[in-house]
Every structure is written in C-alpha cells, then in structure tokens.
C-alpha cells in the first residue's frame, strides 16, 4: 500500500499513459483494420495483394521488433525527431490492425453470399454493398474476437514503456530501482491493467447485447 501512496503521481501518470496509448492505437488499428479487410475482400487484385501482404508481414513479426524498427529506423530515414508516443502508437496500431483485419474478414465470411449477390442485383456498388449490407451483419460476429484483440493490445502496450513512452509497466521499473519490494508493486500494476481491460470487455459486452439478434 505504501508504494502506491508514496508514488501515486508516477502511478497515475503511468496509468494515463497506458490508457492514452491504448486509445490512440485502438483507433488506428480499428480504422486501418476495417480498411484492410475491405481490401482483402475487394475485387481489385492490387488492393487484395496489399491487404494480404500487410497481414502476413505484420501479424507474423514480433511486436518488439516492430517497435525497434519504428524507433530506430523510421526516425533515422523518414521523420527525424518524431515523438516516441506517436511512433509507439503507430507500431502498436499497425500491428493490431492486421489482427482486426482478419477478425473482420472472418465476420464477413459469415454473411451469406446471397446477401451480397442480392445487393449487387439491385445495382449497389462494391463499397455500398460492404457498407450497407455486409458489414452491419458481420459486426455481430466480429465483436467477441475484437474485444480479445483490444485487451491484448492493452497488455502489448507494456512494450512501449521500453521505448520512451510513459506507461503503467514502466512504474514497476521505477519502483524496483527505488528499492521497493516487487510483489506489491506488481500487484498494483496488475490492478491498473485490470481496470483498463475490464472497461474494454464491459464496453464490448454492452455492444454485444445491443446487437443481439435471435437467429
């Protein structure tokens, strides 16, 4: 208890840092993931190829390696002096986007083919079909895997702490350097993560309930 009371300001900063990077990279992952899923099912071969390449490359690369590349290579070649927070959010977002893409694609797969064919027969374009007919129906199926993906993203954000992003897990390093016993420190860190991940799973449970349809 002492550890938390004595260093509450640092703990709070770390907690806010974790929430921030989780939020920012979640938005990046969701937008990019949807776009990539659209690419992967689109009738245009170069787009399909791009989507497949993205997923293959980023889903199969260790996140630490992506962070290393984004922190040591990207600033050196492209944008010198880019903020570590942005670099970290991009690495985490790009990585998670590949998982979001695959979850959405699997959701699209659950929508009967007749739906898309019917949409096309009344003259809808590909984007209209996807936006108005397929994605709304796919959403239901996609929600449970998405919640797992975003919980995983929260926990993955701990790696960002090693790359100059203030986040919750970094607080542990600070405290152990200060000479506190690590067991209570870890308990508080775990509790911090639990708050974030519980909020995410609660949010998704809510969404699930609202979209429930008797089949």
């Amino acid at each position: 208890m002492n550890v938390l009371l004595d260093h509450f300001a640092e703990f709070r900063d770390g907690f806010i840092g974790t929430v921030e990077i989780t939020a920012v990279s979640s938005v990046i992952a969701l937008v990019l993931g949807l776009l990539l899923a659209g690419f992967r099912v689109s009738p245009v071969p170069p787009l399909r190829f791009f989507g497949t390449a993205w997923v293959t490359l980023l889903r199969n690369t260790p996140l630490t390696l992506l962070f290393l590349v984004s922190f040591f290579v990207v600033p050196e070649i492209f944008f010198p002096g880019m903020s570590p927070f942005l670099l970290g959010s991009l690495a985490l977002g790009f990585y998670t986007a590949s998982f979001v893409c695959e979850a959405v694609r699997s959701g699209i797969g659950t929508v009967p083919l007749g739906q898309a064919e019917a949409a096309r027969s009344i003259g809808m374009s590909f984007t209209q079909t996807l936006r108005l007919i397929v994605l709304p129906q796919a959403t239901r199926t996609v929600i449970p895997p998405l919640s797992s993906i975003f919980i995983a993203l929260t926990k993955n954000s701990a790696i960002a702490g090693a790359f100059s992003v203030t986040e919750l897990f970094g607080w542990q390093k600070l405290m152990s350097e200060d000479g506190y016993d690590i067991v209570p420190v870890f308990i508080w860190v775990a509790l911090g993560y639990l708050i974030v991940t519980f909020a995410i799973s609660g949010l998704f449970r809510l969404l699930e309930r609202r979209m429930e349809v008797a089949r």
Partner: protein
Amino acid sequence: MMLRKSAAVAAIAVLALTATACGGKSGSAGDKQSAQPGSSGAPQLPTYAVASNVTLDSPTFKAAKARGKLIIGSKADQPYLGFEDQSTKERSGFDVEIAKMIAADLGFKPDQIEWKTVDSGVRETAISKGQVDYYVGTYTINDKRKKLVGFAGPYYKAGADLLVRKDDNSITGKDSVKGKKVCSIVGSTPLQEIKKPEYGASVVELAKYSDCVQQLLSKQVDAVTTDDAILKGYAAKNSGKLHVVGKPFTEEPYGVGMNKDDKALRDFINSSLEKHEQDGTYKKIYDATLGLSGSTYQAPPTVVRY
C-alpha cells in the same frame, strides 16, 4: 591435391583472423571488447592469491563451501564493468574483477565461481532468496535497499554524469542540457534526476543503455546519462567517438550486495576491500578496466561498516 587442401586451410585461417580483428575493433553492442587486458600496451590485470583455510561464521559462506563453488551475481551487458562475451562466455570488467578478488580472499579459485546474470529489477529478490551468494554489479547503496539486503563497501563512488559525442562541445555539464535530448533507461535514478524541470532537458527513455549509446552515435540524442562508471565503460568501448563530461551531479556509492542478516560475510568483504585498496590491487583493476576510458583514477571511498 595436398597443396590445394593446405592452401584452402590457409585461406580459411586468414579469413578467420581478419574476421576476428574486425570484431575486436568495431564498437557496436555485443561485439568483443577492444583492447583486451593483456594486449600490448594496455595495463595488466592483477592476479589474486587464493586464500586457504578460511574460516568464517557465515551461513552463506558455509553453504558455498559445502557445494564447492561460489555463486556470484553480476551484470552481463555493461562493458568494462560487468560484461559477458556471448561467444566465449567469459566475464570481464571492473565489477567482475572486484568480485573475483573477494572470491579469492574467501578461498575460491576462478573455476569455482559460478556467474549468474541478475538484472537490476530483481536484485533484491535474487539476493534474499539465496540465488546468489553475493552480488557485484553497479549496485547503489541506499537506505530503502538496506532494509532488504546487506551491503559491504562502498567500493566505488559513482555519480550520474553525461556521455556525449567527442565533436560536440555544447554540453559541458548538467547546466548545459537545456533543450537537449538526453537518453537513459526506463525507471533509472539518473533519469528521474534529469527529468526535473530545472534542467530543462527533453528525455528519451529506452530499455537498455546500449540502445541509448546507439542513438547517441546516430545523433538521435545529444547525451546519455547514468552513473559515470557505466558511461566510462561505453566511452572506453567507443574511444575516439564518445567521452564522459566528468562532472558527476549525484552520488551513487556502489556496494556488494548480500544476505541482510549475514554480518560475518559483510565484515569479511569490507576487510577484503580495505586490504586490497591499500595494497594497490584496486588501482590495478581500475587501470586495466575503467581506466581505459581515459578518465582519471579516483581513490575509492572509505568503507562504511554498519
């Protein structure tokens, strides 16, 4: 046939030689250390006389004696302090030599030492759980830690300092880092110090010092801060490119960590440190390790017995 074979062997040998020569000179992380002690011109490391018939009323010592070897905790990624060559598994550096010197006084030969790499975050746990007999690895003595482990020493008075590129004259000390990018590792004490608004530096936090040094060499950051001992190690490794500013702005007395209740061992190590500071062994160790950075020798602080 015979000729071709021996020619091939010779070619391979030449290749191997040039390859190792390259590895020895370049200074990137994980490479072999340059200017190995023993090479011509470099100061020689002292040898330690192994004591015999040591009796000590210490549970740690008795356990080590019974198992026939001593387990020493150390760092493996700090060049010229506690460094393990990943290809030969050989340890070298100032802290490693201090640990060996104490081991010799305790009556353990070099081949009776088992090294264990213990990271900063788990030092207290490793010591109090008895995973190591004692620990030598840039371990700053402070009151909070004294509640968890026992400290012999200090054997070296370190202090937070700045490592900068040799061609960069704009940083001369802690007062000239305003607006500069300073790198250190996540959670470290010097980082907390340099973060204070009075310095006005922008801070980059990375996982390892070698990452910081990498960023310093590629001009992503302007300085690296941590204990001067660690910085001297990197300066020695990248001599010609980096140097330590030489104005420490905190005090970090390094101690030998061990079980909190083992007063007998603590006193023994304190005496051992004092003895070798007087007989010159200590200075020899410094000259052959950290001294290679070009920083001048400073007399060790007086041992504090408690």
